[in-house]
């Protein structure tokens, strides 16, 4: 029997992709509603953004959003690349590449949050 596989991770990742997608509906929904409607007339000025991010809960919420959206995006891109049949070595490169890019995006976002004063 064919045993070239990456074990049960495939299923777990698929489930995480589905769950992160469902979570994003909540997170992205609130991100858009808050950013554009709750703050009166939306986050228009730099000062608006600074005020908005002055609440620690807001920062935590936005960072969570960033983490989940990056995770979902990274897995999605990985899935597209895996569909191209990259072979064993290719799969390893894709896995590492996607992980590093995702980590970079998250760290950059967190760093950015603390740049705004």
């Amino acid at each position, binding site marked *: 029997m064919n045993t070239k596989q990456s074990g049960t991770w495939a299923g777990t990742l698929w489930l995480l992709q589905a769950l992160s997608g469902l979570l994003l509906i909540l997170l992205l929904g609130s991100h858009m509603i808050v950013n554009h409607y709750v703050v009166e007339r939306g986050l228009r000025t*730099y000062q608006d953004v600074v005020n908005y991010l002055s609440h620690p809960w807001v920062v935590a919420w936005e960072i969570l959003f960033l983490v989940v959206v990056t995770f979902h995006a990274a897995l999605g891109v990985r899935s597209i690349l895996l569909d191209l049949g990259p072979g064993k070595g290719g799969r390893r490169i894709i896995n590492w590449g996607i992980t590093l890019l995702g980590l970079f995006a998250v760290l950059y976002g967190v760093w950015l949050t603390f740049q705004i004063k």
Partner: protein
Amino acid sequence: MLDTTRFNTRRRQRRPGAWLHLKGRHVGAWAFALNRLAGLGLVLYLILHLFVLSLLAKGPRAWDDFVALAKSPLILPLDVILLAGILYHGLNGVRIALIGVGIGVRQHKTMFWTLMVIVAVLLAVGTWGFITV
């Protein structure tokens, strides 16, 4: 032997664009291709969005100039496209997640069209919001 010397020399061609060959295909394949295109679009937007946010690090001037640009009516269609992508990818994603664990597999087309109605309604509401806000 089925004359394998000859048969095995011919390997099947890979078709990396197979998912985009939609002629003669059905709703499911279209839904999948659109989902992937929307997803790719959203990844690009995410990168762009993060890049734009770097303006925040450069201080109020840079940001406020950008917001002024983003408020121009020329950007509105792009906003609508973005919202359409988000709504489509999100709601079709719900469908894929459900059928992916065996829920409503036989009704997947009905589910698709129902969700598309919801997408259309939300898109209309959202567009109205863009115009009026």
